[in-house]
């Protein structure tokens, strides 16, 4: 059908298409970068000191982290395609943002993820197998948020920003923040996407954390898309600039640069630890795969955009740097590749062996203090259920 009332969208001109591609592929002059897409070190006197300790061994470790989480991600994606998971949320392309941020955390820090932070989970010591339950439908998160200092995934967009702020307020109320607390003070980090920045909860988190000087780093992975909606559906200004209006600092970092992300996040956490929080970090990156395995990006974005971003791959630039600057041998890369295959095989075997949850699970842990009403409901159902098994 032709346009009703003449509102049909005109096709964009080639110039508009190219301008649009540029806008989403380039972070602008404020972008903090320490490793270029070509694998060359970029000087940045402000943030370099924060990764002065990153020697070749530590760089190797960051590389290994990224390769392993990508491999686990691809395996989980394949498991979904093979019907072993009902859905998977890929992190492809966001490895540097997540490993950089995750490795910046100290053990005493607390992290609040959204639902895509498989790389941060890895850094918190959560084995990729532990993520599977959510996506296979056996649990809502299998790890202990207290023990791992990694909260459960939050799917309702933005909710966790207020929760993280409250947690950080508690860190401050407990006297864990302040001048004397350099290395031992605590901070909180909260992950969310570019789309989430429109939610009231995120704005309220900004307001609360500012008013209570909460030691929280808001870590926004701007992967350019909220499902089918590009960034301009959410904002007129670059996201990191929003912090200013709330009275704290905002930094845009190259989210495909693991060194820069590590440096900026270490700095931001330290600001928080010493009482100068909150801080907003916008990690400028790209969602290289679909939003989830249920999504079809060909309906709303150009393949060319992905091609542009492939040139900025977060893992490749570290590999090139290791080879060119440190003369890294092929043996190392082969070892990491082999290790990643072992991880993938273990993930797969674990997934296939996961038992179906028992109906008891429906009723368990609804309340801290059991409810007689619910207990009766459970008993009645389980009796009914077992009548089929006989």
């Amino acid at each position, binding site marked *: *059908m*032709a*346009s*009703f*009332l*003449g*509102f*049909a*969208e005109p096709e964009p001109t080639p110039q508009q298409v190219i301008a649009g591609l540029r806008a989403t592929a380039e972070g602008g002059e404020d972008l903090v970068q320490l490793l270029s897409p070509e694998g060359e070190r970029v000087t940045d006197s402000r943030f370099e000191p924060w990764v002065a300790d990153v020697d070749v061994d530590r760089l190797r470790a960051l590389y290994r982290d990224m390769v392993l989480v990508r491999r686990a991600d691809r395996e989980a994606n394949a498991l979904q395609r093979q019907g072993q998971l*009902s*859905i998977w949320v890929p992190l492809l392309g966001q490895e540097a943002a997540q490993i950089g941020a995750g490795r910046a955390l100290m053990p005493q820090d607390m992290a609040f993820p959204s*639902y895509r932070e498989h790389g941060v989970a890895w850094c918190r010591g959560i084995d990729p197998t532990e993520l599977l*339950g*959510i*996506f*296979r*439908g*056996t*649990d*809502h998160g299998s790890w202990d948020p207290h023990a791992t200092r990694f909260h459960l995934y939050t*799917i*309702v*967009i*933005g909710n966790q920003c207020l929760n993280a702020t409250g947690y950080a307020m508690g860190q401050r109320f407990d006297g864990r923040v302040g001048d004397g607390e350099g290395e031992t003070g605590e901070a909180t980090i909260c992950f969310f996407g570019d*789309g*989430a920045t*429109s*939610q*009231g*909860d995120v704005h309220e988190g900004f307001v609360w954390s500012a008013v209570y000087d909460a030691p929280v780093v808001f870590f926004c992975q701007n992967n350019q898309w*909220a*499902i*089918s*909606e590009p960034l301009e*559906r*959410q904002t007129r200004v670059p996201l990191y600039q929003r912090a200013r209006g709330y009275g704290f600092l905002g930094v845009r970092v190259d989210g495909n640069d693991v060194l820069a992300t590590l440096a900026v996040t270490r700095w931001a956490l330290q600001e928080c630890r010493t009482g100068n929080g909150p801080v907003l970090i916008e990690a400028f990156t790209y969602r290289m795969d679909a939003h989830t395995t*249920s*999504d079809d990006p060909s*309906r*709303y974005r150009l393949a060319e955009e992905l091609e542009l971003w492939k040139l900025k791959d977060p893992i490749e630039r570290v590999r090139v740097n290791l080879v060119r600057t440190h003369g890294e041998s092929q043996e190392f890369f082969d070892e990491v590749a082999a290790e990643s295959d072992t991880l993938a095989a273990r993930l797969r075997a674990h997934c296939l062996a996961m038992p*179906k*949850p*028992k*109906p008891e*699970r*429906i*009723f368990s842990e*609804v309340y801290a203090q059991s409810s007689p*009403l*619910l207990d009766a*409901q*459970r008993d009645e*159902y389980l009796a*009914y*259920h077992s009548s*089929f098994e006989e």
Partner: protein
Amino acid sequence: MGASTITMAKALNNGLRAAMERDPKVLVMGEDVGKLGGVFRITDGLAKDFGEQRVLDTPLAESGIIGTAVGLAIRGYRPVCEIQFDGFVFPGYDQIVSQLAKLHYRSQGRVLMPVVVRIPFGGGIGAVEHHSESPEALFAHVPGLKVVACGNPVDAYWMIQQAIECDDPVIFFEPKRRYWEKAELDESDRTVVLPLFRARVLRSGSHATLAGYGPVIRTCLDAAAAASSSHGQSPIELEVIDLRTLSPLDLAPVYDSVRRTGRLVVVSEAPSEVSVAAEVAAKVQQHCFYSLEAPVLRVTGFDTPYPPSGCEQDYIPDLDRILEAVDRSLAW
């Protein structure tokens, strides 16, 4: 025109399109409703044909979606808001309860609120948390809102248009796991159209009555078919009523049925405490007290958060649970 076989998703899409063609004040707004056509493709093609000013890919904020729809309605528009999944309506709940539901009352009728909030609801699609909930009671409990649920493609096609034509706010629940179910729809055949706020008897029977809405309607019909053809024993004939409207409830057909059958099983996927099913049970015992041969029974989800999807086949009322309740009712 003639009939064609159509899914519920496509029926809703056609219904939206028809409403938009009829009235230029009808807007569609929500997350990913434009180019993508919504995650369930209910708004597929509408942005292309009606343009960005009538199909709004909004920023990601449900309070914003509902709150601006309220403003647009004050200005004379008829917004149709899409909430992507049931569990994501809550950031918008404040605007729904505080403004959408009350403006007509507060303005003494001067301000109309012809807003439709479409919510895909219920489980059964193996989804992660917050994607499978049945929050209808939280809306049916709010005075000022009207709440309906469609149960088949033909009703979906007509009900969405009627909801858009309604001058009151309508919370429109769509049973997401039935989006792909098909039926014959003849868009020119108005003989099948019921007023929006009416329940519909789908199958007649004399032994007991099943009343439900939304996703369990298909299950109730299957249960009735199974009971009617039951192996060797004397068949049980179940009357099946699709409530369709949860607020206001239209229980006249249920009373009429229960006065004949003497037995009622209310089926719903939502938790049972303080639910729509509870309201139906209370009203039926009040109005049909002397006709009842057994207490009104409920087959519902449990009073727990929606479980991990690996347990959902136990959570969602199925044919066996419905027939077991029917047996209990008959044996009373």
